[in-house]
């Protein structure tokens, strides 16, 4: 699973250390100033500078003086109920039908022979639900107010003592409610689909002459080897991301084997991540090596040298590790020569105190390139100031919850690759169902943001246009990273205008534009720059839906950090407030115009 270090941060770290609070405050002030300026310009054109300023000031005054303080929850609820019923009348529940049809046929596309089918199944249901629910939010929110205005039913509402804030909030709440209902149903269906889809049973196919080693039959495109203990109980090896229990019992003198249900494919491990630094061949802190891969996610350390990867942990609590320190790692090997093909590349793992005076003995391991677990006992041998000594993990190596783990590559001219998230301490396990629920909360937050945007656009645009605008915001939100890459000229071929010219003149992206006219080329580039700047600015005002996605956590069986979820909640709240205020202003001015 890929995680960027900033995703490990707790809510307070994100707010204060990363400066998100300051950034948010600056954004609010800038948006407010920009909004005021734009509104004033429009009002000034319509009514002249003095009158314009007065009307703007009045709207702001009304917001803080009457509309906001006197907003009634009961009226919001009444409008929300209306919106809810309206959505039911518009047959939004059909989405559930579409989803059911989708998962009925999903089995055709999902590859059960994949290394870890659970990842595929969970990714599929979360992604499908995500897209469906965002589209639902989009269609629900964008058409409601414009339809009311078009049918003039809005007058029956505004003539009542209902404030614009209540109309906007009522719609958002109402649509969010119906969305939540649909999402809850989809979530339940998804959960059943995943659990049932991954459930399978094996029989024992062959058993060795000693009656203890055996192989299960093939089910779900895999089989397991197992070894029974003397008490007739055992666990199979791990295949397709899970294991089974096997028990042998004597019935009427004959041994009957029973293979249990899959264990471990639906999990929610609680990881403790650390920050990662690398040292070069001489042991000097450096950047880590790139062995030639395009992906920069993992960096590599050289074997047979002092090059190492050092994780610094800060929250290692004794209470989380009562039976020893369980380390989970997924290290990659890169060979510069094939060497011994059968034996994997070797690495060593060392635990070290943060002041670097005490360190454990080396723990050798063979690189698996998949999730590998090591349990470090609470009492172990090691060195204090290079002198051998018996150590206690939480007394000698962990100081104030801080500790270092070092990985080195033992084989000369071979390399090991790792990123910060590739080594974690496993501090227990939480319920998969709860983690699944958190994943759906994350989707719910995205839905609310889309509804907020849809309602905001619908206060000043007609239905279809509001829908397109919301869709554009969604696309910007999902493909924001690509837009940044575009804007930073990392793609060949220029911007939209240059691209059109290239298509018409049949010029590939790798050659110069060369139109024979420098001025024309410069003009094209300037227009492109203007367009791209505009898109880039717009992009920064919409939420990064890519980053709000958390399906990987659920699919890879990692407990979704509460801090990350809280962060997403705050982001959603920010967009909720922003869109509500903008929606209020538009509705208020529109009302005045009417």
């Amino acid at each position, binding site marked *: 699973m*890929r995680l960027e270090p900033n995703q490990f941060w707790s809510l307070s770290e994100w707010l204060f250390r990363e400066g998100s609070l300051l950034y948010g405050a600056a954004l609010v002030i800038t948006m407010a100033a920009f909004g005021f300026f734009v509104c004033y310009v429009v009002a000034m054109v319509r009514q002249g500078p003095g009158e314009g300023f007065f009307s703007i000031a009045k709207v702001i005054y009304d917001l803080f003086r009457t509309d906001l303080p006197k907003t009634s929850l009961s009226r919001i609820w009444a409008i929300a109920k209306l919106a809810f019923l309206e959505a039911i009348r518009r047959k939004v529940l059909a989405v559930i039908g579409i989803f059911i049809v989708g998962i009925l*046929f999903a089995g*055709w*596309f*999902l*590859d059960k*022979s*994949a*290394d*870890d089918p659970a*990842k*595929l199944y969970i*990714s599929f249901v979360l992604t499908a639900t995500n897209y469906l629910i965002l589209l639902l939010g989009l269609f629900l929110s964008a058409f409601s107010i414009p339809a009311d205005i078009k049918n003039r039913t809005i007058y029956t509402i505004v003539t009542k003592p209902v404030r614009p804030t209540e109309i906007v909030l009522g719609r958002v709440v109402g649509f969010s409610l119906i969305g939540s209902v649909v999402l809850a149903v989809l979530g339940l269906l998804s959960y059943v689909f995943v659990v049932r889809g991954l459930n399978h049973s094996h029989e024992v196919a062959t058993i060795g002459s000693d009656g203890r080693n055996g192989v299960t039959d*093939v089910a779900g495109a895999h*089989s397991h080897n197992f070894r029974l203990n003397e008490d007739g109980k055992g666990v199979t090896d791990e295949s397709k991301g899970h294991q089974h229990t096997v028990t042998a019992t004597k019935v009427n003198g004959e041994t009957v084997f029973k293979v249990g249900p899959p264990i471990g494919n639906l999990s929610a491990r609680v990881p403790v991540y650390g920050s990662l630094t690398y040292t070069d061949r001489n042991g000097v802190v450096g950047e880590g090596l790139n062995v030639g*891969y*395009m*992906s920069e*996610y993992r960096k590599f350390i050289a074997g047979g040298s002092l090059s190492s990867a050092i994780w610094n942990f800060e929250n290692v609590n004794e209470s989380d590790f009562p039976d020893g320190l369980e380390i989970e790692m997924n290290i*990659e*090997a890169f*060979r510069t020569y*094939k060497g011994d*093909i*059968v034996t*994997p*590349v070797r690495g060593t793992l060392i635990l070290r105190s943060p002041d670097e005076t005490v360190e454990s003995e080396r723990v050798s391991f063979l*690189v*698996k*390139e998949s999730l590998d677990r090591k349990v470090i006992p609470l009492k172990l041998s090691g060195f204090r100031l290079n002198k051998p000594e018996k150590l206690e993990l939480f007394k000698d190596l962990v100081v104030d919850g801080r500790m270092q783990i070092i990985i080195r590559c033992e084989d000369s001219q071979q390399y090991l690759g790792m990123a910060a998230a590739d080594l974690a301490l496993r501090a227990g396990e939480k319920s998969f169902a709860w983690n699944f629920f958190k994943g759906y909360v994350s989707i719910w937050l995205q839905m609310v943001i889309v509804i907020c945007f849809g309602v905001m656009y619908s206060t000043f645009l007609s239905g279809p246009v509001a829908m397109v605008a919301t869709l554009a915001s969604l696309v910007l939100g999902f493909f924001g990273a690509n837009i940044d890459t575009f804007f930073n000229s990392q793609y060949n071929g220029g911007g939209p205008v240059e691209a059109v010219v290239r298509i018409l003149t049949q010029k590939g992206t790798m050659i110069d534009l060369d139109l024979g006219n420098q001025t024309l080329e410069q003009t094209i580039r300037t227009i492109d720059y203007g367009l791209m700047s505009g898109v880039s600015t717009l992009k920064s005002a919409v939420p990064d839906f890519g980053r709000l996605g958390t399906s990987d956590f659920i699919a890879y069986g990692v407990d979704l950090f509460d801090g990350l979820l809280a962060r997403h909640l705050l982001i959603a709240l920010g967009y909720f407030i922003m869109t509500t205020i903008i929606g209020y202003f538009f509705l208020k001015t529109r009302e005045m115009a009417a």
Partner: protein
Amino acid sequence: MNTKALYRKAAYICGIVALLLPLFLLGQPPTVKSTGSSAEPSASASASSSGGLLSQIRDRYDIGQASLGQLDPASETMRLATLGLRGVAATILWQKSDYYKTEKYYDRLSATLNQLALLQPHFVSVWDSQAHNLAYNVSVEFDDYRERYAWVKKGIDYLVTGTKFNRRQPILQWHLGKYMTQKLGRSDEKRQFRELFRNDDEYHQKLVGYGLDVESADARGPDRKPDNWLVGRLWFLKAYDLVRAGAYCKKNPLYFYAENPYALMYSAEAMEEEGTLDDKAMFAWSRASNEWDAYGALDIMTSWGHTVQLGKYDVALQVAKDATAKFDALVSDVRKEVIANSKDKLTEDEFAAVNLPPSERTPEQQYLVDASLYKYMPAKTVLIQMLPKEKRTEALALASDVDSKEEYATHVGKYRDQCNYEYWEMRGRLEQKPTTVAARRQMYEADQFLAKGDLDKSMKLYEAAWQNWARVFRAYPKMMTEESADEVLKAIKRYGKAADISLEDSFALSDFLKYRTIRDRNKMSEVGNELFETMLKESPKHKDSLDSPYQVGDAVPEPVIVQLRSESEVVGKTDGKPKSASTQTNETVPTQAKASRADRNPASNESFENVEFVTPDSPRAMQPLANLAPATESAESSESATTRPPTLVVPE
């Protein structure tokens, strides 16, 4: 108003109908009307409609959905669900697959490729390139060879699905054969891959489901388990069947059909490497050799527009030689006249060089011969012009015949070179001989005993192996430069080291060692050339010795040591004149090149009167002088190469 609206609506309806008509004519699907009784299918068929224009075109070119391959509901659903945006969806999926590959999300890559292929089920390149991606590019990213093997299988499975959607594309089956043979059998991990494959019962069942009879004797190795080379060969045979049934394959037939015998050869080779060195190996090689001969008898279409039979190169050479003889007979008087006149034009050295048989010329003399070619060897056109008028037409026809026959022989030769025909032909004949198998077995067992520390048995077996290898190299000297010979060299080193002895001239493989010592210095000398050519000349009489292998305990035969002229006559006389210093020191024409010149030229003779027939405008005559010029070499090293026979050392 109402009337206007009515007119407008009527106009719309007319417009719609007008648009529907051509649509109907174009897109009407074919139908079969059941007008006749079920007992008379012909009557039913006659009442069927061939459909609209598009349908007819699809029928004509056999590109209808049903004729391309299996109709898959999932694929059709996906294609319909994209609402005409299939191209956009496919592009996004391609991008995603690329991203997943770059960032190493291989499971997702595999899932995306499945979706992609469902969107474009009849786009052969998707299956082809992405299957290759999985089997070759993704598999190597894993350190664990078992994981690699699993991804090769994924690539194969992916391509198998492709064959179901494209049942008239033999190239897919052919590539399946390549993956199963080459990827599993030629990788660095071939030993592990082959072992995994032969014990992969689950996968064998899957292959049976794919329509491959992996349980048949044809697909099993010596241990009665499926062998990757032989199973892969079944895919090649499927591809050939498709082509025979009329499917088009754009692959060059030379390579397309070579894979079947290759698979058998490599299977036999792998069998021997893994220790099966008995009658089974001989049978496997004999079968492979027969398939190679059958391949040689195939009519292979060339890029020149005619077919060639690789196995009939000798016939082509003979035909060219006969044609040349006819022409020569017609122009012999005129040629003699020209050559006689040309004597005056040649310098003394040139005359001496030209007068020598080609095999006795030094490289410098050969250079002189080539450079003075235009002075004594008139072109055919010149000779024809010198003939009496009444003979010119006949001569012209004969000359044209010679050109075409020679050209044909050259084409056959070129195609043979491309698939290394001669080597595999020789290998097939040689490896099925009891002596070769015994040599390999003894060497293999000697290695085993040496590893166990049983020096006595090991030495005896090694010594027996050298006797057998000596027979092999004497019968097929060209084997001395092949991979097998490298293995022999390594084994000799192990033997020498273990026995702690220095090899003497009486060593059974002394000729081989001498030759390799010279050759592995990366240059050939007169001694090397002579040694090789002498062995080559004498090889036919040693062929029979391959049927009776030397066994441990047999009487040691007298060593056969090639007597070299350059060892006995170091004076360096060629035509009665002493060699110049440069002649003695610069000897670098590669044996292969020289041998091939002698082999290839349809009419090479050794005397001045009948010098090889090369016209000034032939490729041979146009050869850059640099190719013929001797390479420089230090006097000291060249002296050791020419005047002093090499001592018996094992080259590094």
